[in-house]
């Protein structure tokens, strides 16, 4: 039984780190721009598909990754200028619908280019799973978790230790004041989308060896990332990671111990419980203003 519990924990952490990455990108963009980017899952899908195609041309794996991340980052920036910037004064709901529209188009584009096939990437490190206490742990899970932790540290360092990071925080807290000291919120928004493009693509690439990649995988990823972000608290970057891990572990335990058919429902019930009892999320502080 104990090895079963451990196995479920490992599985949950694998899933959880996938959700964490998406939630992280979602929360970062949301806090900087106020836009809940529902096309983020598509960024991940396109990033992974691009990397797979580039790799298939004979490019070294690492070069394919970097090129793909750069391309999706550019795509993020272009989309921000084309669709978000012109509507920057619109309401939150309008902006959400715009990102839904973008995600629909991106999915169509991916379908056009890559078709309906499923693609996969080789695992980053060779060799089979580790066995710890009779439970198997996939090495790729460690890569994914590592990326989440790395991203989190980088974000923290950026916001707390660099001038640019503090400037962004300032822009978020008070637009007018930020403008007065020479920070342009629309530039900040642009770079936030470039960053979320890069982060989304990286997430997609890291999870591809585990999840496999289809043109339409972004939708479900986006939703799960969204749920994870709310559980952790939309205003908190660390909460996003924690929310993701929690969601993954919960799903895994409910599938393994209660009912596999009801695992998504249980995750939703937890979500609702958090929403109704602690709407600021697990790590969020009520009344806190973004980041």
């Amino acid at each position, binding site marked *: 039984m104990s090895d079963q519990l451990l196995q479920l924990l490992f599985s949950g952490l694998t899933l959880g780190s996938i959700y964490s990455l998406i939630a992280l990108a979602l929360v970062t963009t949301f806090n900087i*721009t*106020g*836009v*809940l980017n529902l096309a983020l899952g598509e960024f991940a899908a396109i990033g992974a598909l691009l990397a797979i195609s580039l790799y298939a041309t004979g490019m070294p794996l690492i070069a394919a990754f970097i090129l793909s991340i750069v391309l999706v980052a550019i795509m993020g920036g272009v989309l921000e200028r084309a*669709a978000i910037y*012109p*509507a*920057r*004064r*619109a*309401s*939150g*709901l*309008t*902006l*959400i*619908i*715009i990102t*839904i*529209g*973008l*995600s*629909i*188009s*991106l*999915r*169509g*584009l991916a*379908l*056009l280019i890559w078709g309906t096939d499923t693609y996969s990437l080789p695992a980053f490190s060779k060799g089979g799973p580790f066995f710890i206490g009779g439970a198997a742990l996939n090495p790729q899970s460690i890569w994914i978790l590592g990326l989440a932790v790395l991203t989190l540290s980088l974000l923290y360092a950026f916001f707390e230790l660099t001038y640019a990071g503090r400037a962004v925080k300032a822009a978020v807290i008070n*637009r007018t004041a930020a403008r007065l000291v020479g920070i342009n*919120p629309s530039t900040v*928004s642009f770079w936030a989308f470039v960053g979320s493009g890069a982060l989304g693509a990286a997430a997609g690439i890291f999870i591809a060896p585990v999840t496999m990649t289809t043109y339409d995988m972004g939708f479900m990823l986006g*939703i799960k990332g*969204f*749920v994870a972000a*709310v559980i952790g608290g*939309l205003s908190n970057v660390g909460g996003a990671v924690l929310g993701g891990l929690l969601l993954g572990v919960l799903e895994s335990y409910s599938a393994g111990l209660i009912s596999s*058919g*009801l695992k*998504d*429902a249980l995750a*939703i*019930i937890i*979500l*609702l419980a958090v*929403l*109704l009892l602690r*709407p600021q999320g697990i790590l969020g502080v009520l009344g806190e203003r973004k980041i």
Partner: protein
Amino acid sequence: MDRFRCLMKIKKTFLWPAAVLLFLALPLVIDSNYLISVLIVIGLYTIIVQGLGILMGYAGQVSFGHGGFFGLGGYAVAIMTTRYGWHPVLALLAAIILPGLIAAIIGRPTLKLRELYLAMGTMGFGILIHTMFNEAGELTGGPSGIAGIPYLTIGGLTFDNDIKFFYLIWAVVLLVLFGINNLIRSRVGRALRAISESEHAAETAGIDTGKLKLKAFIFSALLAGLAGGLYAFYVTFVSPAPFGFNTSVQFVLMAVVGGLGTFLGPLLGAALVVLLGELLRWAIPLVIPGAGGEYEIIFFGLILVVLMIYRPEGLGAFGKISKSPMEKTPAASDVGLPESG
């Protein structure tokens, strides 16, 4: 001059009712079950989006869970008629009441949420209901669904073809339209608008905002259930697939595209989304030979984005002809979601 004025007056009095009549005569003129079906589907969605429009445009509350209520209506009809042999009319009543009951239960805690959290909460309940369709296999037939739903019969009249369904559904649509027109001019309507403009102010003015929002939520669930029940009678088959989160998003899209807080927005939104899909289906192969659904999806998304950038208040704003109380009603920006930045 007098004659001209007189003509104008005649025109004013008769032109628009004539348009309604012309529309209603459509099935007799066009001999196409396909086009009639398209209109039936538009009608079905209009019924749902009308309710959602009240909730979003007037009470200022968003819901990403109406696909679930739509499904509850469909399943109520399917289960009651095939499993328990209820009369179709009774089953249709169940299809209206059940979602209303569920909405009453979940509405109270959920509507305390604001902005994005409300969106999440309603999405959560929608997904829960959808999961239930999949999991309660004994009752719902699981993922395979329920087939063999009988036709709707009302007092000897059996709705077994497209033309009859067209009249049934559009009669309901017009009824709902008139009903809502009266509602928004009533005390309740004014109170609802007050909420969407400023909840605090409304409360100060002595409006029980919680109760009113709940009523709007229940009302929209009832309408979604009604449409779901009619859908089940029309297709005679239900499965969980059409009632998921995607559908809920689609309904919100229709409401926003049509224009929130505008009287005819729901009708326009539903018509535009459905017709756009159908138009793209044949138009794109003309431009790009051999193209499939891929282009359709891309164009649909792009049109949506462009519309939202240049017409964030929705299409309903085009339809405004004269000054009416509705004009002062809130646009999309007043739905309880955060301003950007």
